[in-house]
């Protein structure tokens, strides 16, 4: 096995103060059964799953309650045994925002009874069957973006240059991957190799940041024990956002993912370590994805730690399992402090996208600041991993100049928040860029609509014109016919007159 230590540097990025030690002192808390499960059917950017159970139905752990919809999609399974109490719309946290989704609400019976696997167990032979099994198993990327795993793997199968297994958690608070790598390195490595087989990757790079020596040691040992020549271990510097797919590809391969594309466009696929673990579970035990590791941390929680959370567990209940809130809790963040978003309440379920919940104390989070004017210090540009010029984007966004925003690469902004953190004028840059993207999308839609209505108008004009010209033609034809008839009649008369005359002259 080859050790790979990239000396390449990421463009931009930040060294942020880590808050990982708080949640890594205790082992992962397992075996939790919440009183209620709220299972969202739409947890990712793909298509929602389709419910296949009715209210009142008894379900066992691991039983499919909603089948994968049109691809890309992923099935949803009961994460504990109980009875379906409702199927209703609820607010759920997904990868990048809160959204309303149909949810299957299950009242658990506390027995955590597992469904007997109905399928023949074991890992199917053909790649298509495997992809199908992954979709049925409900696997989705557990790094935060929750893209359905089956679709992602299918996209590179057969032309993959390297599988990148992502154990780099660059967000300052998140430690779920670190803990999983420490506690289940063999499964992760085995899962990674299964993925390699599936996509035919010649190389499998296990990426871990340098600030996780224990995870590096554990994964390194497991990889050596596996003894597969495809495995590489890459230790990468602890720079935010090195864990982002585009940044990882740049860091490991010096190649850049083309604008607007996924890494698969250049033959790479990134999979989170948690996903590799889940795949291994699915392949060896037939267990679908019913839980994930979640970091519960922040100054606002009594005992920060990592928990194995059943998907659908209420966040408030999970925090109680970690000692409950401290009195001064101020903000509840879904995800990390950089890209995570604030939750309005803790009455929401854990989804496949939930890597971390930060119950932040007041001093831990940015309060709304008064802004100074941009002093063009360029700190934001130096920090930007997409090599954008945020200070210029700011001006263009303020002016609503969409052409300029496009030229400046607004769409290439990965919304990492680096620019905000370094801006000495405390300008809320990322949020403005998000708003500008929305405005741009609306603008494009408006343009399309107006182009469409213009087209409609033109079609109508053409139709009217056509009708008119057809009418004119008909009229002309009619007139011509009349004229012709008239001429014929006259001719007939003349002929008759002529005949009469001739007759007369003969008679004369």
């Amino acid at each position, binding site marked *: 096995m080859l050790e790979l230590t990239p000396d390449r540097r990421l463009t931009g990025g930040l060294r*942020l103060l880590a808050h990982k030690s708080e949640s890594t002192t205790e082992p992962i808390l397992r075996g939790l059964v919440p009183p209620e499960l709220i299972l969202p059917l739409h947890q990712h950017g793909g298509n929602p799953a389709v419910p296949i159970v009715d209210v009142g139905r008894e379900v066992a752990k691991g039983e499919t309650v909603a089948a994968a919809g049109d691809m890309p999609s992923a099935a949803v399974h009961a994460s504990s045994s109980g009875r379906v109490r409702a199927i209703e719309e609820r607010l759920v946290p997904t990868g990048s925002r809160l959204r309303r989704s149909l949810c299957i609400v299950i009242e658990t019976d506390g027995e955590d009874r597992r469904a007997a696997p109905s399928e023949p167990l074991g890992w199917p032979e053909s790649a298509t069957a495997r992809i199908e099994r992954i979709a049925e198993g409900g696997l989705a990327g557990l790094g935060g973006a929750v893209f359905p795993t089956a679709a992602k793997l299918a996209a590179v199968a057969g032309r993959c240059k390297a599988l990148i297994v992502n154990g780099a958690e660059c967000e*300052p608070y998140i430690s779920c991957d670190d803990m999983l790598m420490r506690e289940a390195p063999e499964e992760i490595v085995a899962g990674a190799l299964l993925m390699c087989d599936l996509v035919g990757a010649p190389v499998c790079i296990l990426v871990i940041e340098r600030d996780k020596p224990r995870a590096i040691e554990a994964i390194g040992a497991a990889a050596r024990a596996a003894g597969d020549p495809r495995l590489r271990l890459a230790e990468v510097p602890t720079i935010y956002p090195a864990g982002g797919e*585009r940044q990882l590809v*740049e860091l490991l391969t010096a190649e*850049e*993912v*083309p*604008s*607007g*594309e996924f890494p698969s466009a250049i033959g790479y696929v990134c999979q989170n370590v948690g996903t590799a673990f889940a795949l291994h579970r699915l392949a060896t035990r037939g267990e679908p994805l019913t839980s994930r590791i979640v970091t519960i941390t922040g100054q606002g929680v009594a005992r920060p730690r990592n928990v194995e959370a059943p998907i659908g567990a209420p966040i*408030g209940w999970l925090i109680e399992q970690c000692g409950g809130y401290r009195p001064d*809790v101020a*903000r*509840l*963040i879904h995800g990390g*402090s950089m*890209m*995570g*978003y*604030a*939750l*309005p*309440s*803790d*009455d929401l379920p854990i989804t496949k996208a939930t890597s971390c919940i*930060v119950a*932040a104390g007041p001093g*831990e*989070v*940015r309060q*709304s*600041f*008064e802004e*100074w*004017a*941009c*002093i*063009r*210090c*360029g700190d934001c*540009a*130096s920090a930007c*991993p*997409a*090599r954008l*010029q945020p*200070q*210029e984007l700011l001006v263009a966004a303020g002016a609503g100049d969409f052409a300029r925003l496009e030229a400046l690469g607004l769409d*290439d902004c990965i*919304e990492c*928040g680096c620019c905000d*953190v*370094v801006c*000495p*004028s*405390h300008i*809320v840059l*990322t*949020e403005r860029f*998000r708003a500008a993207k929305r405005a741009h999308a609306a603008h494009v839609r408006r343009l399309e609509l107006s182009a469409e209505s213009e087209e409609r108008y033109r079609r109508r004009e053409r139709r009217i014109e056509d009708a008119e010209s057809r009418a004119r033609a008909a009229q002309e034809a009619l007139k011509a016919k009349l004229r012709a008839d008239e001429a014929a009649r006259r001719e007939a008369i003349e002929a008759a007159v002529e005949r009469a005359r001739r007759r007369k002259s003969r008679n004369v």
Partner: protein
Amino acid sequence: MKFETAAPPHAVPVRGVPQIMRRVLLALVPAAAAYTWFFGFGLLINFVIAALAALVTEAAILKLRRRPTRRALRDCSALVTAALLAFALPPLLPWWIPALGGFVGIALAKQLYGGLGKNLFNPAMVAYVLLLVSFPIQMTQWVPPRMGDIDYRPLGFVGTLRYSLYEELPPSQSLDALTRATPLDTVKEGLRSQRTFEELRGLSLIGTFGGRGWEWVNNFIALGGLYLLYAGIIRWQIPVAVLAGLLVPAGLLHLLDSSRFPSPAFHLFSGAAMLGAFFIATDPVSAATSDRGRLVYGAGIGVLTYAIRTWGGYPDGLAFAVLLMNAAVPLIDRYTQPRIYGHSAG
């Protein structure tokens, strides 16, 4: 339980504008001390006057524009302008000149463009150049350094203040006896009257590298500049490019003809070279923003400074060079944007 909502990122910002400005001021303290030691209290008096004028002007204009004043005054940017101006002014000046400088810098060069962050030109340099062309006599009355072997009795604090406020000198002193040309001026004039640089080096005003006293002040300014680099307030591109832009032509021409072209070290350690490289050209608002742009911008300032010093009408050209390059910034920015991630070159 309900919670407050806010847009990401939630991480606390690393620093603020006032902190940056205060650090710039702090970085100037050692140089100010050295300057005061060698050239008397004029710097501090001029700074206080210019700063008062700058703050009053800023407050008044913001009032007129109905903008919040307290916050703008707290950002310390007006103080930085005043400090840079004070370093550029001769130490013996009637009070109304630094006052006018403070006013012009803020009113004309900053607020007229829309305030902090909007100005095209460096306010301190606009003020300095305006004063230089308006009051050429007063603006070239420099004093020699306080050094043992220079025959000169400097004015103390009270004497300098009296001159500043009433333009009065002690009975035994005359302005002629107190003031001298700067080392740069001396060398320029000397070379013009066909003396060689080697001869001029022997003059009492000229030191090992640059002007006597001046080399020390420049050293301390460079020290402050290194602190700014260390603290991440400025990045290396501009200072290095300015110094290289000055050093390279100076070195080449000095190699060609060392009698007519002063040594590169003399250029670096006289006049405003270090102040310009570390404190003036690095003013973020009026400088180029991309890394490559900063190299071009800095190099332009260095080369232009050298050209004006050598062939132009003024002994030091830094202020003019900075203003000229300020004007070129939009152009530089336009052509030095880095390639966006994921976009192919070209």
